[in-house]
């Protein structure tokens, strides 16, 4: 009743389902989220071109005026077309988290895979190092960075990346250890393949579903934190349209009875974050299921 072990080559080059199939496996909610994200990405890329008006120029006399002809959402506190500012703000709101995620995933993967591969003292060293910084609040580091290097998206993004990397590395290290102990790795080693090539061409590709899922979830967190930092005035600086900045700018409008400007920016943030959360969770479930 024993099943013959599958030939090593077949296991090493695991038939990766197409990414499309993986997406479909996340269900209706997953696909809807992916669509929302795609729209957001599109707006981020082409926002300024799509905007009916300038996000920067406004007349104070139009401050907080509601929707009128040609201005679908009305104006913000400075009399700028709200819709144009929203479309323009997509760019910084999305690029910042993207930077954070790219850095974290790269650094995290390198740390995780190298620690899982070498094990021993190197692993212990890296792991304790990561443990020390684990769960350290990113916002605090970002504020500190703003104090040191001046306010700005770059400093904030880098600070967040530093704060998140230990968490990402920890998660990926677990997965890397599991991959490392698979039979195909031993088989490849015996065949004389170098550690580097095994990791690059086999280990990491097999971890890809998990890495992508983790990246997606991370994007949500990074987006919230960066928006918060911009809200505090330490990230993206006005007059740049950024959803976090817009909430801070138009907060006074809420108390004066003109909530649309601040709310609209808030809703944009929530929708995109929810989309990333849902998609990320579903992808994570798929990655777990695939592992079995």
């Amino acid at each position: 009743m024993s099943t013959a072990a599958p030939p090593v080559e077949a296991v090493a080059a695991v038939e990766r389902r197409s990414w499309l199939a993986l997406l479909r496996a996340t269900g209706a909610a997953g696909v809807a989220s992916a669509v929302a994200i795609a729209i957001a990405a599109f707006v981020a890329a082409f926002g300024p071109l799509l905007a009916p008006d300038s996000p920067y120029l406004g007349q104070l006399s139009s401050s907080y005026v509601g929707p009128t002809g040609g201005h679908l959402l009305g104006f913000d506190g400075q009399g700028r077309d709200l819709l144009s500012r929203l479309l323009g703000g997509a760019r910084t709101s999305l690029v910042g988290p993207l930077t954070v995620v790219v850095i974290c995933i790269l650094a995290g993967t390198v740390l995780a895979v190298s620690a899982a591969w070498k094990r021993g003292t190197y692993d212990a060293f890296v792991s304790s190092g990561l443990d020390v910084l684990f769960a350290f609040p990113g916002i605090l580091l970002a504020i500190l960075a703003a104090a040191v290097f001046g306010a700005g998206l770059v400093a904030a993004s880098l600070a967040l990346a530093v704060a998140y990397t230990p968490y990402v590395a920890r998660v990926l290290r677990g997965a890397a250890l599991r991959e490392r102990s698979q039979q195909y790795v031993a088989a490849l080693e015996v065949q004389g393949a170098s550690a580097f090539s095994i990791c690059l061409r086999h280990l990491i590709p097999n971890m890809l579903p998990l890495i992508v899922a983790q990246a997606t979830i991370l994007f949500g967190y990074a987006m919230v934190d960066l928006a918060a930092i911009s809200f505090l005035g330490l990230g993206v600086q006005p007059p740049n349209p950024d959803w976090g900045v817009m909430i801070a700018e138009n907060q006074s409008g809420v108390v004066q009875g003109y909530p649309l400007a601040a709310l609209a920016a808030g809703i944009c943030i929530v929708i995109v974050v929810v989309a990333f959360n849902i998609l990320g969770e579903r992808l994570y479930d798929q990655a777990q299921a695939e592992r079995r």
Partner: protein
Amino acid sequence: MLVATLVVSSFVIFSALYLAPGNPIAVLSGGRTLPAESIKVLEARYHLNDPFITQYWLWLKGVAHGDFGISIALRENVSTLIASRIGTTAALVLYASLLILVIGIGLGLAAGLRRGFLDTSVLAVTAVSAAIPSFVAAIVLILLFSVKLTLFPSLGDGQGLFGTIYHLTLPAVALAISSLAIVARVTRASVREEFGREHVQTAVSRGIPYRQLVRRHVLRNAAIPITTISGITVASLIAIAAVVERAFGLNGLGAYLVSAANSKDFAVVQGISLVLVTAFVVVNVLVDVLYAILDPRVSLGSRAQ
């Protein structure tokens, strides 16, 4: 392990002075021009002519005695400035933590122990609120309860016990709302998982009555992951509080930290950062201790993450 975090963090906070572009004097002065004697005072106070490690050590010693340096902008002892604001932040974090623990765990337990409508509605509500960042929640809350319904004030700290509670309610809710959802979900999942475990089945097979079963075998065991997530959540409040304080115009440490960072008042930034990091570490230590008490398999300091 957490002590290491504290030490490393303090080192990072301290050395930030040197990481900043420009020489330390420029950083400390925040770009302002100072008369010559002020510079000398600064040099003496910060021992800027001593080797790096000595400076670090002296700074640490000073901090241990409550001496955080002087605020350039306000020309006051940082420690006094911190002391006057720490109450607000502490009250806010405490208030929010209470909301998270009581409502979050409560909802999670209710949903985990029963099926049907209560369960699905808790799941649906938490799915949405988990994704609402606190500053967005702040706006919505101000809109609903301050402007439309004028139930709560949108600005300021309030005086006295009831005044403070009144003023801090909206901020606490804004701070708590997304963490509350996460704690509720994890609580629910943990309770469900414990219910399915074999040792619970054994207790059933021995005729242990339902109430006792739930109390002694399901909840008692689920308390472990629930404590972990609650600890992580409360610890993270310490940083997010800054955002909420800003949104509601509260005179707390977080808001002050942000304005100090903006005005490059370095000593203040260092001082508050250190206080917040210490608070963060203390909370984590408490959670570790609780965890070791709850789970006899674990020895202190080795909390499985």
